């Protein structure tokens, strides 16, 4: 009965559900095409770089759950990411580096760290939350930095076993750019879907509620600390999954991965990409790491460039580069309706 079948070509006549499924298919196809393109053109180094962008972008995405939807600006987010990276790197030495095991270790570490941090920071909000998460992050950093026997201290850890994937009958080594890139594409996509389903689920809506109307939410009977804790744990799990792959792409994990400047860097990426937009996390991390890698090969002043880009973003496009550019070119007038 559809309009395609009777050949009238009247697109508007199509049922909405069918149109949407077509749109989703088109989007997925486009996404697959976009994900596959680098495989054709990029070398091993670039693919590893893209994998790093996707992995850090995933961690930034998890931060967006807190900042964008909960209004909780954490300066201790690197603890989940870096903690999981260390846990995976240390576990790989005894368990072997199977990707499923690594992800499980990372997610568990991230969630446990988030739970622990939540117990400490959940009583407070706003600036107090910022400072407490910072203090907790600094404590973890100090421990990582001084616990030489396990974490390697200031030198960090190197020389991990090769990341592998058991498929039942064969074990595929994931040690080249292509494999690592594909693994991080899958990770990023899964994290995006997880974050989106969290956000669209009642818990995500409740989290938004705690940000917008805290008093009304508690009057309705919601336990605000519990909602925030759940968001923190979910976010920690996603960050942990990203952290688990990080050592294998970078072939190194050092104390900087848990330092608060890493948390601050994630916030910068998030803001450049757009707070509250989910996909903005990846754009932000691509811009930041792109500047870091390519500008630093021309000049030592790359931090100045990053700082300027960041400050200009905050001043001119507080909603991030994508939303800012959209507004600047006046396209997609319906954008306001879709948060």
């Amino acid at each position, binding site marked *: 009965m559809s309009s395609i079948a009777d050949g009238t070509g009247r697109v508007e006549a199509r049922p909405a559900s069918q149109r949407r499924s077509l749109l989703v298919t088109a989007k997925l196809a486009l996404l697959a095409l976009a994900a596959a393109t680098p495989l054709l053109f990029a070398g091993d180094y670039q693919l590893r770089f893209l994998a790093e962008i996707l992995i850090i972008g995933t961690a930034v995405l998890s931060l967006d759950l807190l900042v964008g939807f909960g209004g909780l600006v954490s300066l201790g987010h690197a603890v989940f990411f870096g903690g999981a990276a260390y846990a995976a790197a240390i576990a790989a030495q005894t368990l072997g580096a199977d990707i499923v095991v690594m992800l499980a270790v990372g997610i568990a570490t991230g969630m446990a760290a988030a739970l622990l941090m939540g117990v400490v920071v959940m009583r407070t909000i706003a600036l*107090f939350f910022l400072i407490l998460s*910072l203090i907790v992050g*600094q404590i973890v950093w100090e421990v990582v930095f001084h616990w030489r026997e396990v974490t390697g201290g200031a030198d960090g850890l190197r020389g991990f076993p090769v990341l592998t994937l058991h498929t039942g009958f064969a074990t595929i080594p994931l040690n080249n750019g292509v494999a690592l890139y594909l693994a991080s594409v899958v990770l990023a996509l899964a994290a995006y879907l997880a974050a989106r389903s969290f956000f669209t689920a009642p818990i995500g809506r409740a989290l938004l509620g705690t940000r917008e109307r805290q008093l009304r939410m508690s009057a309705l009977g919601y336990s605000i600390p519990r909602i925030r804790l759940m968001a923190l744990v979910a976010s920690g799990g996603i960050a942990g999954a990203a952290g688990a792959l990080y050592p294998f792409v970078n072939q190194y994990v050092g104390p900087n991965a848990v330092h608060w*400047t890493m948390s601050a860097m994630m916030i910068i990426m998030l803001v450049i990409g757009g707070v509250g937009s989910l996909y903005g996390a990846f754009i932000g991390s691509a811009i930041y790491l792109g500047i870091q890698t390519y500008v630093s090969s021309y000049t030592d002043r790359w931090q100045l460039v990053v700082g300027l880009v960041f400050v200009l973003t*905050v001043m001119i496009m*507080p909603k991030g580069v994508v939303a800012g550019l959209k507004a600047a070119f006046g396209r997609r007038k319906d954008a306001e309706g879709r948060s």
Partner: protein
Amino acid sequence: MGFYAVQSLNALSFSMLLLLTGLGLSVVLNLMNFVNLTHGSFFLLGAYVGVYWLASGAPWWLAFPVAFVAAGLAGFLLERFPFRQFYARTHLMQVLLTYGLSVIFADLMRWGFGAQILSAEIPEALRGVVFIMDMPFPIYRLFIIGFGAALAFALWFVIDRTIWGAVVRACVTDRGFVETLGLDTRRIFTAVLVISAGLGGISGALGAGILSAYPGLDEEVLILALIVVVAGGLGTFRGTVLSALLLGFAMTFSKVWVPEFSNVVALAIMAALLVALPEGLVARKVRQV
């Protein structure tokens, strides 16, 4: 006994630096409701100015006023351009803006002053030690304690006991009302920010004698100052003093007793404090900022 007396004085001198830096930060936060994360940059700028001034052979005591002026000038310029538009925005936007600016300044200072550690040449008059219960104690640290205490007292007096302080506090409570009285609140806010930046600069110049000056010092100091201000309780002068003393003593004595994990212990104490008292040491009174 003598050992602990000297360590207490050490802690006190460090607390004074924390107090001066924290006061600069808290004046702006409490009076203008503006989170200024470039405060650490003011501190580092003051430290660099101090190092270069003390090495230049000019009258040494001028180093501190000069550091005040240099950082105050930087504060004045910043207030003029980006800060002013952000007073009405959320804390998050202020944190983002000022953190971005501090990244820029950190890199500019690394460019201008180099990346190596610069130690200040302590002036002739303040070199040497005094003996306290047979233990040597550097005169310079005594100077920091005295100078810092005097400065903090002066600041408290101005804000709490004079008509200027009353005007600034009135601006926070009801800005429109103060405008109606014919006072230019924009000027007042500029003055507060300049004084705050100057305080950061002067504590940097003072601290250069014991902490030196190097890239990254700005962040370390900023974090400690933020902890002091927040743990003290927003909006209270007393709380800032108390938590500066607490953090100074915690950091110094944990370094004596558990040198390996000194910072962990000191930070854990502050974290425990904030968990136990989520509003800070001294909870804010009715004054809603």
